[in-house]
């Protein structure tokens, strides 16, 4: 978690108080409500400060609780006293804030108006914020410590480690770059590496840490600066194999004598640690090319049972030799065994000497069968395993990979996986295998017995053929049958035609019987001739004769209309007089009647009505009446 600056801390907490507590309060509320409102704010702020400060205090490691290597490292980097002081200040601030809150909450219980309570709350919050403002420098320091601490390399102090040390610029960082996947800066000036770096490598199926230190110069402990002290701390606390890197070519800027001096000075730190001297930059100058005195130095070292190995990180010779040496098993003399093996052996030894071993040893029991006869029964190791082990130890070139082949041939390379196939005949490897034929998959027919089955099938087929199954049984039909068929066809066609004709007629409504319609002579003759009848003497036929014999149609007499009576006679004729003359005595009366008739008709005529009952309105909405403004 980030350690906030004092200002930020205050801002955040106060705004939080404002957002997360209720904000509305009025004078006229009940006093207990007002008090509760303001007390809540004070307590909320106190709670926030307390929580955050506690979090900070717990997140920072206690120097007494962590591994002494890290404790020492932190002391070197951050100064133990300053660190403890800063955390102490934070603790004090937290307690003060709690006290302030407690006091003011107690006071608020006696606040009797909103104004008083509000002022108390203001005072409380103000005091808390002032306390925190005073912690500004501590908080800044702790933030910086946190950032640096998070970037420290994660060195496990308990696991297998190789430690590189020596003068600046001798080639420690180049070594670690070669051996592990670490990418440490390598530059021609001294003190390129300013802090510890870790890399990991694998050896014998175990993970090893390789720790790169900044260069150490030769002066007493008190005068060392922070950077060198890191190296010294690492040397002091990590139980690792030490690789003291020297530079016989003196390219680092220091003579071999100086390097030897340093070596002797640091000697006490190498107690109980497997030590190897690495003479780096041997591509520039080999030990054998050195002067007599210098060679003597190396000879002295060898006599002291410290192996000296020549390496060159540029040409990579000897680098592997430093960490491995395949022929080693534990029976070999110590002086020849390299760093890793020695460290492993040492670790095993210390474990055996310790207390925990007995727990494990008590549970292990190697059962040896008792000999029942003199026959030798050595353990069986398959040849493949032995070969594999040999191949591991010696760096034999593995079989040629496809990749190598690809690089060789360049553009000509063609990926041909078929060449690895394991077939019965070797020369069939490049065959194009048929897969599909006419919609069938060849793979579905593959069967070692297929020829036998095919033979059986063919035999069956032959038998069937002989039995006559495949003969076509279409008898040639006799003429009669053919004629019948053609007639049937004609009949079917005729039927269809009749159906179509009747559909075409499309008669709606009541249908006249067939006999009501006249049949044309021509049509009759045509139909009959189609049916095969002989139409040669059609004039003698029945229908023709009948047609000639029928009578001509006579017309009906018209009925004559009877004449109306002109004079008035006593014996009046039975025929009725017309209405406009019946019941009228003389001309005068006739005229009057006529006049009356015309009178009654006049109004109607004027209104263009047909009669009395004619109520038809020609124009329901006449335009001349309805248009315009009303």
């Amino acid at each position, binding site marked *: 978690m980030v350690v906030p600056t004092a200002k930020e801390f205050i801002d955040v907490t106060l705004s939080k108080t404002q957002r997360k507590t209720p904000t509305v309060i009025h004078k006229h509320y009940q006093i207990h409500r007002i008090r509760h409102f303001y007390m809540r704010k004070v307590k909320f702020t106190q709670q926030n400060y307390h929580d955050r400060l506690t979090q900070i205090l717990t997140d920072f490691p206690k120097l007494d609780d962590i591994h002494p290597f890290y404790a020492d490292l932190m002391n070197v980097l951050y100064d133990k006293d300053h660190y403890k002081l800063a955390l102490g200040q934070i603790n004090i601030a937290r307690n003060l804030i709690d006290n302030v809150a407690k006091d003011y909450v107690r006071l608020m219980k006696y606040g009797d108006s909103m104004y008083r309570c509000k002022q108390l709350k203001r005072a409380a919050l103000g005091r808390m914020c002032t306390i925190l403002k005073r912690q500004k420098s501590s908080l800044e320091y702790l933030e910086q410590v946190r950032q640096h601490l998070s970037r420290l390399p994660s060195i496990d102090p308990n696991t297998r480690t190789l430690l590189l040390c020596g003068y600046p610029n001798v080639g420690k960082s180049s070594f670690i770059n070669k051996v592990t996947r670490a990418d440490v800066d390598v530059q021609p000036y001294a003190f390129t590496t300013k802090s510890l770096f870790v890399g990991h490598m694998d050896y014998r199926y175990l993970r090893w840490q390789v720790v790169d230190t900044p260069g150490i110069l030769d002066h007493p402990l008190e005068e060392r600066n922070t950077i060198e002290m890191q190296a010294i701390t690492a040397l002091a606390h990590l139980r690792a194999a030490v690789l003291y890197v020297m530079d016989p070519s003196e390219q680092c800027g220091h003579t071999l004598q100086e390097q030897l001096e340093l070596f002797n000075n640091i000697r006490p730190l190498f107690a109980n640690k497997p030590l190897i001297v690495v003479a780096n930059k041997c591509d520039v100058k080999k030990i054998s090319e050195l002067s007599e005195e210098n060679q003597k130095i190396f000879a002295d070292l060898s006599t002291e049972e410290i192996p000296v190995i020549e390496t060159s990180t540029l040409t990579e010779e000897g680098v592997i030799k430093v960490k491995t040496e395949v022929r080693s098993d534990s029976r070999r003399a110590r002086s020849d065994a390299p760093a890793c093996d020695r460290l492993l052996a040492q670790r095993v030894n210390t474990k055996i000497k310790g207390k925990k071993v007995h727990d494990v040893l008590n549970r292990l029991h190697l059962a040896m069968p008792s000999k029942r006869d003199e026959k030798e029964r050595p353990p069986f190791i398959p040849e493949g395993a032995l070969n594999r082990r040999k191949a591991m130890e010696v760096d034999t070139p593995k079989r040629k990979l496809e990749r190598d082949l690809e690089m060789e041939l360049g553009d000509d390379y063609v990926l041909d996986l078929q060449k690895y*196939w*394991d*077939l*019965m*005949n070797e020369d*069939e490897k490049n*065959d194009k*295998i*048929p*897969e*599909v*034929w*006419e*919609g*069938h*998959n*060849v*793979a*579905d*027919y*593959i*069967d*070692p017995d*297929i*020829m036998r*089955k*095919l033979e*059986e*099938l*063919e035999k*069956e*087929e032959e038998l069937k053929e002989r039995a006559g*199954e*495949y003969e076509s*049984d279409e008898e040639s039909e006799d003429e009669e*049958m053919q004629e*019948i*068929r053609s*007639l*049937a066809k*004609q*009949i*079917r066609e*005729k*039927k269809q035609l*009749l159906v179509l004709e009747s559909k075409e007629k499309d008669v709606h409504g009541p249908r006249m019987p067939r006999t009501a319609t006249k049949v044309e002579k021509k049509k009759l003759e045509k139909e*009959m001739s189609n*049916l*095969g*009848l*002989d139409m040669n003497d059609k004039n003698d036929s029945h229908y023709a004769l009948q047609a000639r014999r029928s009578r001509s149609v006579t017309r009906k007499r018209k009925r004559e209309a009877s004449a109306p009576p002109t004079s008035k006679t006593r014996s009046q004729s039975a025929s009725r007089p017309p209405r406009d003359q019946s019941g009228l005595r003389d001309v005068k009366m006739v005229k009057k009647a006529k006049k009356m008739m015309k009178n009654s008709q006049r109004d109607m005529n004027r209104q263009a009505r047909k009669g009395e009952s004619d109520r038809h309105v020609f124009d329901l909405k006449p335009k001349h009446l309805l248009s315009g403004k009303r």
Partner: protein
Amino acid sequence: MRIEKCYFCSGPVYPGHGVMFVRNDCKMFRFCKSKCHKNFKKKRNPRKTRWTKAFRKAAGKELTVDNSLEFEKRRNIPVKYNRQLWDKTVEAMKKVEEIKVKRQARFIMNRLRKGKQLEKEEAITEVKKNIHLIKAPHAGKAKQLEDKMVQRLQEDVEMGNEDD
């Protein structure tokens, strides 16, 4: 590369054609065209859909049990390539195909033979019943009568001659 069978119509699905549907119980259904796919989605039973091979085989309209059909089987254990075996297999395949086709055709012919018989009988009844639609009953009768009369007369003449 394999030519698969369509689940619905049992037709061939060539590579690059059709659709494969994988159900939640890991059963794969291949379809040769969207017609089959859509029918499947409508949950139609291929054994009841008349145009599919499954229906035809289930309804006995096509040859189902036969030795020539036993050759084409999906085999789960692959056999190592052997040129001789493959060559023989391709030849055998061709021969088997011939025989298979012949037998299938034979089967269908047998099935349809009855139909020809029925057709014949139908034609006969049709003619018997409805001959009046194309030929009047006494169409050639007048001529026949005439011929008969002529023949009779000739016989009479002959008889007369004989008497004399």
